[in-house]
């Protein structure tokens, strides 16, 4: 037979049939079908042991259960957080920012994992030791050349925390007076409490109160420990407590109130004094107030300036409503009036704090269950080790500088003086704060950091401030280091808890406290300095716990959290006279000041601007995660990156603005662009801007999502306390000629 075309075809057919019957083709088909399941972008969860460990998020004070996966090959990884129902604060609740901690932890555009140094404008990664050496060299040179006072430290204010204690000790030893804390409501409450009652650690006993008046306090938008506040709110509903919210916007808190008084912005304090006036005029003032030496003058002042009709007109709240709330407050056996922090992420105003604490004093709920109480202190709070007084340690600080440190809570005023060359600063060390974003004068802070030759930032994230720093020292997350969580703002009970490392991602990352101890080691002669007898934050915490009379190891085994109860019947007035100081002299001054601000607003601007705090958008200290963007609705952020601001239609009706109108919001210090959202739930004459958006850092998913509220916030220094205030900012709204229907 010939090997012709036909023969070849027969052979080929046989070959094809043979190959198909062999395993090759069916196996290949099977494998290809399986291969199509293996796309590289489909996440594959790692296998390993999953353990649940307890911890506390010191930023939000949420007790959490952390799921840690221990993979045989790739080690430990955080895979989820859930609420811890056994924790003393809250009821197993969890915030969006807590739930997205793992995302922030592993999102390379947020977390700083290696120290960064900028040389000749170029940033490069170095080891922890190298970075620390650079900072130590700089600080040591300045100290040795007698220029310690040319170094400034910026930090968050949290006087009970171990970081604050270490920082104050370091600054004290180093010899500079420039330790500047971020403005906080806690500090404002301390100042007013000390002035009026001679007591610093004041708290509102919300858990036991039956009648609560909130003067603008955003209870459900991030107050104290938010999960605990939710629990308290539920308890109020269950026991039938009356909750009154006084603020100019129908916020989440206002929507849950039994009575909402939508007053004009900035008039909360005026209403508090009006209520105090009513109680005093009806002869029901407490003995605390009656015993005050200037009580008669006070009564006269109230009747002249806070007459109900006058206040009703000024605050635009009906007289009957004011009377109803004031009488309900007076008649309840467990009532408290609450102030601070402000809705614009501000510490609140001195005037409001004075008014609200005065109202409590007039009611006579001082030291009473459900009233204004003094927190019981932990044992170490009375010892030198934790006292923020700078008398301990071997620092070379002068008496003048000591005074400066103790009163330095105005970062804005400090920046102004440096920019105007009244203070010479060569180095700024920013400890866990981001003033270029949170301001309140962001552009001024940016200018300041650009002017100062050497800037160090200790930060967990590569945020706006760290991007401008010459050295970035990466701060460990609470999941990977030792640290503490302390009493939330104005809590009636003292609280202290410790978090321990659950995971170790990078050896180049340290807790803030350990970075400060590193500076101590490099700059001081520790053998001569008796103020630091520990070499790590873990040791320092161990010392604290043992000062409480507790065994550190045993405490850790039982997942420590310690709490001291509210002190009832122990409200000793500790002012110089032993009587309540009604601060009449301050009131005279403050009253005239308030009038000035109002005139300024009425004359130069069409509206005033306030912030909208929210647990969804993050806060100044806790940037939101990409996941959190998903829970924002179109009345906050629309078209992926456009900020939506709330305004009453009557505010802009005359100007011909429409719903969805794109506008420029211009203040004396800056400008932002946003779309208008008409809402009848806000007061006319006010524009409300969401807080927490508009970061210019954090990569693709968070950068430029909305605009930063603080870019347009103006700030002024209070004439009495010297503290910065920015509750209200006068602004103009200018049409941009673009209307988009965002909802």
């Amino acid at each position: 037979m010939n090997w012709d075309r036909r023969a070849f075809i027969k052979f080929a057919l046989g070959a094809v049939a043979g190959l198909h019957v062999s395993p090759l083709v069916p196996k290949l088909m099977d494998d290809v079908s399986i291969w199509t399941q293996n796309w590289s972008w489909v996440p594959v969860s790692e296998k390993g042991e999953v353990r649940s460990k307890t911890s506390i998020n010191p930023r939000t004070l949420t007790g959490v259960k952390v799921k840690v996966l221990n993979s045989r090959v790739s080690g430990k990884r955080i895979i989820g957080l859930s609420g811890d129902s056994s924790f003393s604060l809250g009821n197993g609740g969890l915030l969006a920012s807590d739930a997205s901690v793992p995302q922030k932890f592993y999102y390379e555009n947020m977390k700083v994992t290696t120290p960064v140094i900028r040389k000749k404008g170029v940033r490069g990664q170095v080891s922890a030791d190298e970075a620390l050496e650079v900072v130590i060299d700089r600080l040591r040179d300045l100290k040795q050349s007698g220029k310690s006072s040319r170094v400034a430290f910026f930090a968050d204010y949290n006087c009970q925390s171990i970081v604050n204690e270490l920082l104050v000790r370091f600054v004290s030893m180093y010899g500079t007076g420039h330790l500047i804390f971020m403005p906080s409501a806690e500090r404002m409450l301390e100042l007013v409490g000390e002035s009026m009652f001679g007591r610093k650690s004041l708290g509102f006993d919300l858990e036991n109160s039956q009648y609560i008046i909130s003067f603008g306090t955003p209870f459900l938008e991030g107050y104290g420990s938010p999960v605990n506040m939710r629990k308290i709110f539920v308890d109020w509903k269950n026991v039938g407590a009356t909750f009154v919210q006084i603020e100019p916007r129908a916020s989440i808190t206002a929507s849950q109130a039994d009575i909402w008084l939508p007053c004009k912005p900035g008039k909360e304090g005026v209403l508090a004094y009006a209520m105090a006036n009513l109680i005093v005029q009806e002869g029901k003032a407490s003995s605390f107030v009656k015993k005050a030496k200037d009580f008669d003058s006070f009564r006269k002042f109230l009747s002249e300036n806070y007459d109900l009709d006058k206040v009703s007109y000024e605050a635009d709240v009906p007289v009957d409503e004011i009377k109803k709330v004031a009488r309900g407050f007076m008649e309840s056996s467990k009532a408290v009036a609450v102030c601070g922090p402000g809705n614009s992420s501000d510490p609140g105003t001195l005037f409001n704090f004075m008014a609200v604490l005065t109202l409590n004093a007039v009611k006579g709920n001082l030291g009473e269950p459900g009233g204004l109480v003094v927190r019981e202190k932990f044992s170490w709070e009375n010892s030198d080790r934790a006292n923020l007084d700078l008398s301990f340690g071997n620092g070379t600080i002068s008496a003048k500088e000591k005074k400066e440190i103790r009163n330095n809570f105005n970062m804005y005023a400090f920046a102004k003086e440096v920019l105007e060359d009244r203070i010479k600063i060569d180095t700024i060390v920013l400890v866990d704060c981001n003033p270029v974003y949170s301001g309140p004068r962001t552009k001024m802070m940016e200018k300041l950091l650009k002017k100062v030759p050497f800037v160090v930032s200790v930060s967990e994230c590569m945020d706006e401030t760290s991007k401008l720093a010459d050295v970035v020292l990466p701060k460990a997350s609470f999941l990977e280091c030792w640290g503490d969580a302390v009493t939330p703002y104005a809590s009636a009970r003292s609280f202290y808890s410790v978090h321990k490392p659950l995971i170790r991602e990078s050896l180049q990352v340290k807790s803030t406290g350990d970075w400060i101890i590193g500076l101590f080691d490099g700059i001081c002669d520790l053998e001569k300095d008796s103020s630091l007898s520990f070499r790590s934050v873990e040791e320092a915490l161990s010392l604290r716990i043992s000062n409480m009379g507790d065994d550190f190891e045993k405490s850790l085994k039982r997942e420590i959290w310690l709490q001291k109860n509210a002190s009832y019947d122990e409200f000793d007035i500790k002012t110089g006279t032993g009587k309540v100081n009604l601060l009449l002299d301050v009131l005279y001054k403050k009253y005239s000041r308030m009038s000035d601000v109002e005139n300024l607003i009425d004359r130069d601007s069409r509206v005033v601007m306030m912030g909208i705090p929210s647990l969804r958008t993050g806060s100044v200290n806790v940037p939101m995660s990409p996941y959190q963007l998903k829970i924002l609705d179109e009345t906050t952020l629309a078209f992926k990156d456009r900020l939506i601001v709330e305004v009453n239609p009557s505010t802009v009706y005359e100007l011909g603005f429409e719903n969805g109108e794109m506008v420029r919001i211009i203040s004396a210090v800056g400008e932002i662009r946003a779309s208008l959202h008409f809402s009848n739930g806000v007061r006319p004459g006010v524009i409300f801007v969401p807080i927490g958006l508009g970061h210019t850092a954090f990569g693709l998913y968070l950068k430029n999502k909305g605009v930063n509220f603080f870019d347009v916030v103006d700030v002024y220094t209070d004439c009495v306390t010297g503290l910065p205030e920015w509750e209200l900012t006068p602004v103009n709204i200018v049409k941009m000629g673009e209307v988009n229907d965002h909802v």
Partner: protein
Amino acid sequence: MVAQKNEKQRGWSLTSWWLFLLGFVVFLLLGFWITPIVLYAENPQPFQFSHKLHLEDIESCDFCHFFREDGSYSGIPGLDKCKDCHNEEDPIGETVEEKVFVEKYLANDKPVPWRVYSEQPPCVFFSHAAHVKNAGFECSECHGDHGKTDNLRVYQYNRLTGYSRDIWGWNLIPLGNPPDRMKMDDCVKCHRDSGVRDACFVCHK
């Protein structure tokens, strides 16, 4: 014309189909020979390991392969488990293989990247607890007599899918039962035979 037609008929006659048969047989054999070469590649284990030797010194399989407190199965032990015996004071590193383990992995605290013969695809949820504790399976029913071996056999993986060859089975014709192969069909068959649900979501969550 008639002659041409007869010629064509001869060309397609049954007697000449032996060429078809030849092509069929040759390529069938070629298919069997080439299939493993085309589809599978080898990946060496980091070093040799003797289950037999280890079982002489420890009580039982579950000293290393145990159920955790949460009910999940540990599978291949991590370095921490190895350190129970191979500690810093006495690393036990006499043979060549042990020296590799001690010097390369133990000293550097580096986990051993073992290739797992019975690793199922990520889309499969497999609970050892359900099969061992509830159904009472012996380890060897799925894994064979792995625990008695002195050496680790060659690890082969599929070039396309990356999965271990043990899943399909070493037999090129899909015949046999576990431990020879561990395909979905085997799971389904066993579930059906045992009266256990065999719906998709039982294994594919």
